[in-house]
Structures are given as C-alpha cells and as structure tokens.
C-alpha cells in the first residue's frame, strides 16, 4: 500500500494543490488535511505548504500555529513523523518551535520570485535522503518574508550538528543568515525550507525536476521506518 502523505490547507494556503501533485508524482497517496480538523486521517507524513495562512496576520505562521490541525502535527512531529514545511510552512514550523530561529522580511525590501540554485547540505533527513550532500538543485523561490535569522549560538549549533539542510548558491535572495535556505530538527524528521521543491517536479511546469527528491526521500524514509 502506498504511503499516505497529508497536505494541510489553511485559509490562505496557495501551494497545497501543487504539494499534493508532487506527493503523487513521487508515488505516494496525497491526503488533503484541513486546518480546522484535528485529525491527521492516519497519514504517515505531513507537508505544510506555502501561501499566506490566515493572511499572514500578526506574523507569518503565528495564527496557523494555534490551529486545531497543528496541535496534532506538533504531537506527531515530536513522535518522529516526517513533517516538511515549505515557505509559509517553514514559518509555521518556526512559530511552533519545532524548528529554531525565525523568518523576517527580505532585506531587499521586495518580494522575490525566481528560480534559485541551492546546495543540499544534509542528505540524512527524512526529506533529503535521496540527495547527496553537495548536490546543486534548481527550484523556484517566491517569498517576501524569507530571511532566516537566529542568534549566533543557534546558528553555530545548527552548523556544528549538520542541521543546515540547504543553502542558497550564487546570490542570497533575502538576507538569510549564513545563506540558510532550510534547516532540520535534531532528529531529522522535521524540515523547513523557504524555496519550493513542489514546483519543480515536472518538466512541463518547473525549471527542473530537482524538487522531486524531497518527496521520494520521505517515501524511502517511511519504508525504512
């Protein structure tokens, strides 16, 4: 039976449909989850998609953190379930304290939308085990508040524990400290990523199919157990 990967739709989510397509392209069964329903419908992993949940009111991801579904996602993540937060999903994971640090307004004071080269730094997480450390991948990036910040002690800890999952290559688009595009938790099941691998899974619509590996990785991690 195919692994079932849930994708949460919050009011204001934009990329939930693309995330479900990416899950299906990887060979898993996508399951739509709803922000106001605490049930995770028995899924094996969860994707928090990009968008502007709750209109980005208060702070990006701050209201979503207290939604009924997130209480279940937070519990499941602590129990080891693979959780991937993309863009707004990354912001939600930081607001939920599943990942350290925060995402602030781009230093360039503009919304940035372009294809972005990344270097995969950690190939041991549940979402990156189908890559090799050092792989350079091209995926879309689109954010207004994508600047990753944390205090020096936290940044040093992330570096020393190998928890930087991906870094921006060539040109840092948003002022993220140490060119950080994505990080993971200390057990490698929770990953937050500002760029959008779900938009790079099909040659017709993406700049590459480099993003597919995030979703096939989760499948492999689930089989491996």
């Amino acid at each position, binding site marked *: 039976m195919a692994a079932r990967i849930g994708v949460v739709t919050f009011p204001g989510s934009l990329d939930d449909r693309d995330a479900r397509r990416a899950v299906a392209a990887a060979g898993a069964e996508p399951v739509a989850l709803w922000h106001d329903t605490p049930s995770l419908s028995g899924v094996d992993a969860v994707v928090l998609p990009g968008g502007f949940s709750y209109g980005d009111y208060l702070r990006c991801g701050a209201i979503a953190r207290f939604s009924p579904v997130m209480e279940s996602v937070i519990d499941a993540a602590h129990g080891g379930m693979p959780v991937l937060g993309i863009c707004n999903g990354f912001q939600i994971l930081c607001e939920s304290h599943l990942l350290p640090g925060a995402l602030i307004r781009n230093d360039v*004071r503009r919304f940035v939308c372009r294809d972005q080269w990344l270097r995969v730094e950690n190939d041991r997480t549940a979402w990156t085990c189908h890559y090799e450390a050092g792989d350079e991948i091209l995926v879309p990036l689109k954010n207004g508040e994508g600047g990753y910040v944390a205090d020096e002690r936290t940044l040093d800890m992330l570096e020393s524990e190998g928890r930087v999952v991906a870094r921006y290559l060539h040109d840092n688009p948003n002022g993220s400290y140490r060119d950080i595009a994505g990080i993971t938790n200390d057990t490698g099941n929770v990953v937050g990523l500002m760029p959008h691998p779900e938009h790079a899974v099909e040659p017709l619509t993406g700049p590459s199919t480099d993003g597919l590996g995030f979703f096939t990785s989760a499948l492999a991690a689930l089989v491996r157990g």
Partner: protein
Amino acid sequence: MARVVVDVMLKPEILDPQGQAVQGALTRLGVAGVASVRQGKRFEIEVESAPDAAELDRIASTLLANTVIEDYTVHVEGR
C-alpha cells in the same frame, strides 16, 4: 474594565526593512535629519479584569510577540 497594552518591537539587532522604507519616505517628504526608524506593533486588549503578571507574560510571549526576534512591554491601564 481594564485595558492591557502590549508594545512589541523588533530586537535592536534584527533588520527592519519596513522601518527603512518609512525612513526613505520621510526623507522624500522633506523631513531632514532622520537617523533611524523602527516599526513596531501595539495591542490594546480590553478585559473584565486584568490578568496577573504571569498570565500577561504568557499572552505576550506566546502569541503577541515572537521572542526570537521581538521584545515586548506590557502595562495595564484603568485598574
């Protein structure tokens, strides 16, 4: 009734692009000598009676401010 006022500001070391944009606009408005602008948030919460200090702190630090990047101050009016 009591009014709880929570002021939230980005920590000094965190870049504030919105404040920078306001500073640029002030200059274009003809205001001279603006050294810096920082933009924050103010919450005014009307409650039947003011919660105790620990509860106020919980409200501010859990929801109203993200203490990774923001500082806050709380004061109660009309008590």
